[in-house]
């Protein structure tokens, strides 16, 4: 493989990593910081994408579509929190698992009910379509660069919110001892609703942005859910920096694994089985990465405890 291709693949890996962070950002808030196991995160991602596709279809405006995605996902998030999650804070984590599992069913089939069984159309806006030339002669889709930009912005924003603001401190205090922070005069319930809605909005934003270059369909949130959990766990729960580093590690591993492993296996195996075995190992690579990281750092790269 040529050097320039390798560099391009590394760039792809980084790009995919940042995209993963964007998809995981909402979950970082809800799960990483608030400590809530929200399996329905992928559904909120899907809600964002569908809202965007619907509005883009009506109005033809991508900007309006993004607004719709944010609004719809935030509203869905707030609703979930008020109706369901709120009653589960003082319960076992497992109850949250079951409840949000139920929410996945409702959201997925509800969406299909509303929008039908076929994938929707959502495309990148014309202004951002097409590739641009990077230094070094690499043609790179502009839209992907935009995603990197937004992803990094979101990372910085979330980091600032959690680490530097009093709201962030209060949320983390609430995660440590809800009853106590309330007894000190903080309306933690309202705060949690807001943060949950914010996390949902981020998921929706990611759904819309990423949906434009992927397929907007029922069930699109599921792989995202698992990837997002993998990313957060590798980085260490509660750490925004960890989530970003985790995303990039996963992005690089997945991309480079897929690119490099099949030829690598080809050096000592028959060509035909090498592609298949190599690809099989490549599909496992992020899980292998996660196991590796957790064996050496049982609470993730930047996990406190």
């Amino acid at each position, binding site marked *: *493989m040529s050097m320039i291709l390798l560099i391009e693949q590394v760039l792809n890996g980084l790009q995919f990593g940042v995209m993963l962070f964007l998809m995981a950002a909402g979950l970082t808030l809800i799960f990483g910081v608030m400590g809530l196991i929200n399996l329905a995160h992928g559904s909120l991602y899907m809600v964002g994408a569908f809202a965007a596709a619907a509005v883009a279809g009506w109005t033809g405006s991508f900007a309006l579509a993004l607004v719709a995605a944010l609004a719809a996902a935030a509203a869905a998030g707030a609703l979930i929190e008020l109706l369901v999650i709120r009653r589960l804070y003082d319960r076992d984590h497992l109850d949250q698992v079951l409840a949000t599992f139920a929410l996945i069913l409702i959201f997925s089939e509800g969406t299909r009910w509303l929008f039908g069984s076929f*994938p929707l159309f959502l495309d990148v806006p014309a202004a951002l379509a097409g590739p641009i030339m990077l230094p070094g002669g690499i043609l790179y889709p502009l839209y992907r660069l935009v995603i990197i930009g937004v992803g990094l912005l979101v990372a910085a924003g979330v980091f600032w919110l959690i680490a530097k603001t009093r709201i962030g401190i209060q949320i983390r205090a609430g995660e440590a001892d809800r009853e106590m922070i309330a007894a000190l005069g903080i309306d933690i319930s309202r705060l949690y609703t807001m943060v949950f809605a914010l996390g949902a909005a981020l998921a929706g934003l990611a759904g819309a942005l990423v949906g434009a*270059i992927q397929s907007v369909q*029922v069930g*699109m949130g599921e792989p995202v859910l698992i990837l997002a959990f993998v990313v957060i766990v590798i980085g260490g729960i509660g750490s925004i920096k960890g989530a970003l580093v985790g995303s990039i590690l996963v992005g690089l591993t997945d991309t480079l694994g897929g690119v490099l492993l099949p030829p690598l296996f080809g050096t000592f195996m028959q060509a035909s089985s090498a592609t298949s075995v190599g690809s099989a190992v490549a*599909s496992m690579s992020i899980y292998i990465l996660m196991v590796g990281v957790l064996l050496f750092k049982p609470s993730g790269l930047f996990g406190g405890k």
Partner: protein
Amino acid sequence: DGGKVKVGMITTLSGGGAGLGIDVRDGFVLAAKGNENLELVIEDDQRKPDVAVQLTDKLIQSEKVDVLTGIIWSNLAMAVVPAATAQGKFYLSPNAGPSALAGKGCSPLYFNVAWQNDAFYEAGGLWASENGIEKVFLMAPNYPAGTDGMTGFKRTFKGEVVGEVYTKLGQTDYAAEIAQIRASDADTVYFFLPGGMGISFMKQFAGSGVDKNVMGPAFSFDQGILGAIGDAALGVKNTSHWSKDIDNAANKKFVADFQAEYGRLPSLYAAQGYDTALLLQSAMGKADVADAAAFQAALEEADFASVRGDFAFAPNHHPIQDIYMREVIKEGDVVTNKIVGVASSDHQDVYGADCKM
């Protein structure tokens, strides 16, 4: 002459792949409309093999159906077909034709009304060889349907395969693969990525500015999917045994009726469901399902007006039919397919030789 027939349809009606199942069902129901001798029981397999097997048992044991049909996916077919035929029931496949069931695992009671899995790929390879395509880059998910498909293509393709990539099943980001495609000296990308994977790939491929021909089997460019890909799919060549512009009376009626009934364009799955019901009814007119041998013979005749044109069964009960080459075009606002030629006429699968029945 035939009495009543009870048909059990197990298909995917919920979850991600529901669109295909719904089309098969709608096509079937459309063709069977008004036939009082045909009683239909429909069940949702949720795309889970174990559920499909259990539903098979249910339909056979509790509902006492005579004929089963409906399965969309190869892996579900592998589970259901043996279970159904082992219990002495007919199975008519409206989609999915795994090689195992065409060869060694064939059964007198099993009829495939769609295609053997390799058909579109083999036809694609033939067409590519005959139309000046020299260097292809192959891509498919790393699972049997994917690897088998690429093997099918290579079986008939005479040019050079310059790259071959098997991606993770369910992958949604193809930046790395597109970079590999760009770097290769292929003139054509031939790929099979079902459902959302294909949509993602096509959109990203279009945005990457890579300028190469794209080809594939119809599955990634069927009507239900084209709407989601949009203009990015224009110009793509894909092989199919059906297209809405096939010029015969049966097809014209089907397309018109389907649109009138459901308010959308039919897909190839709908066409297959429709043909399945036509085949079944043709046999019902000739034999009583209780007389298995006679009913089997009636089915083997395939005496119905297929929307695909000429249709016959090979000895292994798999179709002999033309496979067309289609191109994605735009008709007004609608992105759709147009036939550009026949890729393989009277196509027949290669596994029949292993079929002993």
